[in-house]
């Protein structure tokens, strides 16, 4: 297996650090999302697809985000010493984040957690994402591309203008299908139809998904039916990001029994079948 990130127990001291990164560029990609590129040093720039950072977001007057904010990497460029994030402005933390301008510094902790795992034996995989989940899946496309694994992407959003990271997928040679609520193409039935066709065409050795519980359910059903592998990147509120506080737990189905796992530590990427709604 090709695991770009280490399992929790094997992560040595220094595999994650707290550092002050410098803003290189920071632009709005649409009405809701912003693309933040930071200049950083290792190990940050060695982050693997699916891993995340804990960001110490600047405070807006009045609303100071006390805790760090988890954000998965949108991409890294070790040569340029850059790590990128693509985020949606939601509340206090991300609104503060949105105030950063080039030259400002941002305190980041990472890379953290367990990322996507790619099996070189796979010939083609499918990435199904929605909303911010598209940001999390983008670096997976690059990893697949690097290892010659073909990738088909189904990118879901409320409106066409809110779709993000499709350029990244295309650059990686992905076959991209965009579905939106506005066009009535994002419903689970339609998605299932698309997926069944791809499976029939033998273009699905594994599912990779993030950002939608409904789409997760569809893929779990199909994975069971066709005995396919898969991985899902999950989100949960986090305080420490290092497996210490147990505020980010979720229930997982492990061989029939429900087990509580820490998203920040055992994940955020988990086996597709274990995830529960």
């Amino acid at each position: 297996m090709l695991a770009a990130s280490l399992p929790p127990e094997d992560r040595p001291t220094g595999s994650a650090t707290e550092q002050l990164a410098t803003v290189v560029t920071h632009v709005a990609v649409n009405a809701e999302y912003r693309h933040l590129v930071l200049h950083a040093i290792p190990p940050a720039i060695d982050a693997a697809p699916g891993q995340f950072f804990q960001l110490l977001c600047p405070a807006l007057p009045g609303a100071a985000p006390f805790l760090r904010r988890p954000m998965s990497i949108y991409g890294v460029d070790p040569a340029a010493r850059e790590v990128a994030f693509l985020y949606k402005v939601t509340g206090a933390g991300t609104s503060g984040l949105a105030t950063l301008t080039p030259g400002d510094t941002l305190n980041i902790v990472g890379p953290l957690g367990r990322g996507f795992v790619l099996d070189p034996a796979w010939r083609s995989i499918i990435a199904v994402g929605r909303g911010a989940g598209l940001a999390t899946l983008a670096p997976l496309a690059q990893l697949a591309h690097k290892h010659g694994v073909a990738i088909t992407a189904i990118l879901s959003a409320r409106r066409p203008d809110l779709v993000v990271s499709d350029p990244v997928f295309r650059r990686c040679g992905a076959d991209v299908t965009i579905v939106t609520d506005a066009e009535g193409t994002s419903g689970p039935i339609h998605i299932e139809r698309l997926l069944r066709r791809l499976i029939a065409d033998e273009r699905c050795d594994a599912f990779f998904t993030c950002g939608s519980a409904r789409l997760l359910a569809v893929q779990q059903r199909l994975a069971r039916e066709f005995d396919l592998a898969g991985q899902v990147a999950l989100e949960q509120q986090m305080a420490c990001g290092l497996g210490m506080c147990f505020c980010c737990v979720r229930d997982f189905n492990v061989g029939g029994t429900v087990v509580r796992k820490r998203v920040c530590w055992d994940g955020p990427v988990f086996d597709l079948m274990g995830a529960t709604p």
Partner: protein
Amino acid sequence: MTDLSVRIGALTLANPVMPASGTFAEGLAQVVDLNRLGALVTKTITRELREGNPLPRVAETHDGMLNSIGIPSKGVPYFLEHTLPTLARWTPPLVVSVSAPTVEGFAELAAMMSVPGVDAIEANISCPNIEEDGRAFAMRATSTASVMRALRGATRLPLWAKLTPNTGDIAEVAAAAEAEGADALVVANTILGMSIDLATFRPRLGNVMGGLSGPAIKPIVMRLVYQCARRVRVPVIGCGGIATANDAAEYMLAGATAVQVGTATFLHPGAMIEIIDGLAAFCTGRNIRHVAGLTGAMQREEADEAEVEWVGA
């Protein structure tokens, strides 16, 4: 060079800085060298398997956070087989935090935890006592005395009592713990609080109420440490809102022999290391040879304190 070592009863720590229970796990080793810490303290464990509380489990407040994690616990066998060996990879003394809903349960668990590799037991008696319909043991001197007596009888290991700040009788509780054989007091656990989401009119914590921690509680817990240190002879370990070396020094001046750091580590994983280095610098800058010299070194005339205090009006 400042001597940073401190003595907690029979135990000597290389420095007075350690994590607060429930805010530390081996994951921190990814970011910092755990061998630099004065001690390691585990998340509280219980004998019975526990799920912990409903989500959401944390909420942000002014200069602090609320948590209602509860005590998720995989039980004793798992702890002995997995947690203990994992933490044994590091050199600092290992303090195991235990809790139970009954006096007897506490004693039994302490006995089970008194194994090689464990250097001290921290009894989290800030937890509900089902024999007193859920009131925490440390709320009263009487219930504190009975649980500490049982614990003392159950283990030979150094025994620390972790007190709750939610009592109105902290000095009496501290005295009771000392009288029944506590080797040190950890002051304190979180302060009970709550918060409501104005968008949904629902509590911000799945459990409605939770424990407040972080800088916001520092002046309150500092006062509790001061009140305890004046009353007992055993070392007091200060814990509440410590984020910097100055915070740690302030706690020591108020009477603390060592400090525990919790929430600050969430915001800055390296906080404890910075506090250790900062304490050394603090002492050097003042020609204090031994950090222990800070303990209780607050200057005051007796006149400072009125016979009958009208504090805070």
